[in-house]
């Protein structure tokens, strides 16, 4: 099997597992063994992947390009600003209360996930974030 074919097969397997786990998560209720199990499986898979890649040297920016001025480094601070704004507003809502006036992300999530499709989408989004953390 060529490298390209192997990559495709791995991606297809990963997507299949992620969709399957999301469908499973959608039919679970919090504080049950099922919910614990599906979340633990996802966390376990990412942990195994991180452990397998741990010895690989950490990626570093290509300093030669930067020194030549050939590449303008894209700005990353807007991501930091967005994250800070999200955390700040979450904290304001958490401490200000009541939830009816200032819903936190958790309370918004609880009401949105009455629909199983939304819960599956949220779980899939969380898995995609996990995959992004180990695939870089």
């Amino acid at each position, binding site marked *: 099997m060529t490298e390209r074919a192997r990559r495709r097969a791995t991606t297809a397997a990963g997507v299949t597992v992620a969709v399957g786990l999301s469908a499973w998560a959608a039919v679970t209720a919090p504080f049950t063994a099922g919910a614990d199990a599906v979340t633990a499986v996802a966390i376990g898979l990412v942990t195994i992947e991180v452990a397998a890649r741990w010895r690989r040297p950490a990626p570093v920016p290509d300093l030669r390009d930067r020194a030549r001025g050939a590449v303008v480094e894209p700005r990353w601070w807007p*991501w930091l600003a967005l994250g800070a704004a999200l955390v700040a507003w979450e904290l304001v809502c958490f401490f200000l209360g009541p*939830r009816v006036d200032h819903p936190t992300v958790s309370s918004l999530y609880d009401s949105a996930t009455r629909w199983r499709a939304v819960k599956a989408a949220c779980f899939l989004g969380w898995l995609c974030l996990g995959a992004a*953390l180990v695939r870089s």
Partner: protein
Amino acid sequence: MAVPGRGAGAVVTSAQALSDALWAALAASALATVAASHLGRPRLARLSTLVRRIEANRVVYVAVLVGWMWVGWHFFAR
């Protein structure tokens, strides 16, 4: 969105409207940031670039991974 205490036909207060508007603005900003980072010759780093930057520092990388795990456990298990 049906947050506990907000039944159908309930009066929406200014605090609720402000809170909802801010959440909507933050969500829209997140989507706009993702879109902007994928445009041609982006001046904004993509999420993958950000992850590589984080991964370069092992301590920060582990902290981010633990944060990801906590988010999953908090929302889906507990």
